[in-house]
């Protein structure tokens, strides 16, 4: 994957297929600590201990259209190649948590890329699932919670083009602020 944001989209897809109603994506970045952490947590169907062990194996997949499953192994590799860590925790009936941490300055660090686009597409394609996206840097943080938007929207779908545009611009603004780029 060329960007970590693509890994995030891929892993979040597993949450969608696990029939999660809530997916939390957290990106914590610190230049001070030379650390980037990505967490994807869902309340989907979860996996047994045995399945968790298998999912790290590229030749395991729960699907039937092909014989390999590279989503989790690629995500794991992206973290470990920077000297970071990877963990996946899951409980049947409760959900799954996937966490990857990266040493930012490492030569094999993949750029985070356009994470906002990932979030917008996830909402656009899964308007019935709730997403909580939080991002933080050394200079600030923000959260987008579709449950709050849903309350305001009162029945108007999240995948309405104008709503998606609002979300996109909101994310852009907030990202700029926590990257120290803009004055309010």
């Amino acid at each position, binding site marked *: 994957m060329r960007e970590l944001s693509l890994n995030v*989209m*891929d892993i979040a*897809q597993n949450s969608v297929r696990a029939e999660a109603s809530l997916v939390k994506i957290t990106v914590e970045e610190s230049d001070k600590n030379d650390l980037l952490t990505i967490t994807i947590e869902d309340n989907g169907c979860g996996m047994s201990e045995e399945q968790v062990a298998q999912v790290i194996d590229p030749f395991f997949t729960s699907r039937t259209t*092909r014989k390999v499953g590279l989503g989790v192994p690629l995500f794991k590799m992206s973290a470990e190649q920077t000297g970071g860590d990877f963990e996946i925790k899951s409980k049947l009936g409760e959900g799954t948590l996937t966490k990857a941490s990266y040493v930012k300055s490492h030569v094999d660090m993949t750029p985070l890329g356009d994470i906002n686009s990932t979030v917008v*597409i996830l909402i*656009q394609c899964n308007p019935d699932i709730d997403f909580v996206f939080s991002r933080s840097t050394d200079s600030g943080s923000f959260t987008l919670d579709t449950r709050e938007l849903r309350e305001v*929207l009162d029945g108007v779908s999240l995948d309405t083009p104008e*709503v998606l545009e609002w979300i996109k611009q909101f994310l852009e603004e907030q990202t700029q602020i926590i990257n120290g780029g803009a004055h309010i």
Partner: protein
Amino acid sequence: MKSLAELQAIRDRAKAGINLRKENPNAARVLVGMATCGIAAGARPVLNAFTEEIAKRGLTEDITVTQTGCIGICQYEPVVEVEIPGEEKVTYVKMTPEKVARVVNDHLVNHNVVTEFTIGANT
């Protein structure tokens, strides 16, 4: 700054105007393959290009863009399926954002399949 008040205004406009459509049963569907293979091959910019092109032409009520999983032809990703009610499903392969405008214009608007982008022409 984007405010919730702005979102409320969008809500009110949506409720006042477009409520009639709800689910348009005749809407065409564009399905972009977004499994690991599709994403790695560049499906995201393709999906974004479809969304933008369709919005630009004011067709958001007639065409929905969504994602699908892997259909087993990973070597041809990014794969896009176009479904128009009453017409045969068409599978486009090795899509790029540059090819999107033609698929929207020729196929979705004018009902002429862009044969050279289909899987039949690329195997």
